[in-house]
């Protein structure tokens, strides 16, 4: 995935980094062992892969992220909208909602969002 998307395992890994950064690589290994069941070598391998993707950096054994949660989420949703809904955002939202109705809070939040994004 070279378009800013990540695999399920990588997403969880990034979450650990986001929640704990800046984090020492040793501590990171511990956390990954606890939360993901990853061996030390696995953690280092995945770390290097993310570094190669430019999403994370490791300076003097301190790991920080170079990409934000929102950015990854944006890439993922863009992919879904483009692939599954052929670029139709309304289509995506409708499918996401399915049968249910929006609550008052959701409707307000969406209205504000739409206004903010409206062109012109």
């Amino acid at each position, binding site marked *: 995935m070279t378009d800013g998307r990540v695999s*399920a*395992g990588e997403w*969880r890994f990034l979450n650990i980094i986001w929640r704990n950064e800046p984090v020492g690589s040793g501590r990171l290994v511990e956390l990954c062992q606890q*939360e993901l*069941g*990853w061996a030390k070598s*696995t953690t280092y*391998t*995945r770390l290097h892969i993310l570094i190669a993707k430019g999403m994370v950096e490791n300076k003097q054994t301190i790991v920080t992220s170079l990409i934000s949660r929102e950015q990854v989420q944006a890439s993922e949703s863009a992919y879904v909208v483009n692939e599954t809904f052929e670029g139709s955002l309304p289509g995506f939202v409708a499918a996401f909602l399915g049968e249910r109705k929006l609550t008052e809070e959701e409707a307000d939040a969406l209205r504000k969002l739409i206004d903010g994004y409206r062109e012109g």
Partner: protein
Amino acid sequence: MTALFLQILNMSLAGGVIILAVVVMRALLWRAPRKWVMLLWIAPAVRLVCPVGLTAVFSFFAAMRAPQTALRTGNFTNLDLGGAVMESVGNILPAETPAGSVNHLQTIENVAGIMWLAGMAVLLAIETFRYLKMKALVSDAYVTESGAYETDRISSPFILGIIRPRIYLPLEMGADTRKLVLAHERYHLRKRDSLIKLAARAILLVHWFNPLAWLAYRLMSEDIEMRCDEAVLAELCRGEANDSIRKAYSYALVSMASEKTQMHSSLAFGERKVRRRIMNVLRWKEPKKWLSAVLAAVCLIFVVGCVTNPAGAPQNVSFEERLERMQELSGKKELDALKLMGVAASSLTSSTEVPGSDGNSYTKNQYDTAELQLILECNGGTITNYTVLLYCTTEEELVANYRKVDEALRKNHEYMIHGPYQYRTKDGRSISWSFVDNQQTTAEGMPRFILSYRSALMPDDVVQQLR
């Protein structure tokens, strides 16, 4: 190396016969619970690994060897690796025998041995490569509270790993399917099916040239999965509505069906052809206790029957032991090789003493029968030698008599023929079969063939007297 390969070939042929028997048996038992049917596979596994064979199969091999020997009638000085005697007997041959046509067969055997090793190496490399690839694919899988690992890179659940096998699950699974799949995979782990499959795979790699081995592996893998399905169903269906569980399970099988057939060593839940398993699941019924017991007994009896030797055949006695027994017996003053041949002692026409340069006295007995014209025995001394020689006028007679001798020797537990043509004992005696294309003719002008079986080295001068 070639000897090892020939051993393996022997075992493969024996194993192949058993595999066919198991396939038939399995077809007959298609409605039986898989946990008993799986026992059947023990039989070919044993046969493919242990160099203990059925007498029937061996005499099949003995019969196969006879035509081979016709090829060898050109020259056989190579047969006895170090038997000077053999070379001297070989001197009966005319000088023009081309050394090239020698061991035609031996070269073929050597090449085959090398090809076998090469094939094994290639397959092993492929296995390793595939395993590493799978490992890399699931390297970012994370553990879930069930203990199984989850990853979005696979579409079908499986187990990977030998020392610490792990369950790998894809993300897109409904709750019901997930429950069933976990139960299924956990059963695999409990029964250590990973190890069973690994052992089977190892055997397959050694017998890679045998298509029946591949068939057996595939069928056994099916049985492993179906046994697992049955066990899971049995546990889940206690008191609950059977149909809904069966449907849920079938749905799980279909939704997890993978696109490719996975012929590697991992235990995959989904297969391309799920129809068989679904049929099995839908039709499955808890078997009655007595029926289970009967089926278990049938399978066990079948396995025991396939693995053991029929009564009267040489049992698992080592060659050395049997040789010792033979030596004990032939230490007696008179070794009656005639009994082996079924020749009446009354047909003896002459008996002469032949002193050997090794200090022993040999007795040359001539019998007047159509098959047997000469037998040489060694009496006295501490050396136990004997040689059986058959003069035959035609090649057909030769082959027929060879079989007779071979059979007679096998039936008699004291004598053993091991290996294609020869064997060496620890103290340096050699035992070998050989054939000579003797340019001599009988009185009627027919060409003569000599079949000789030696139990030990005999001095040259005695050998000369054999004509």
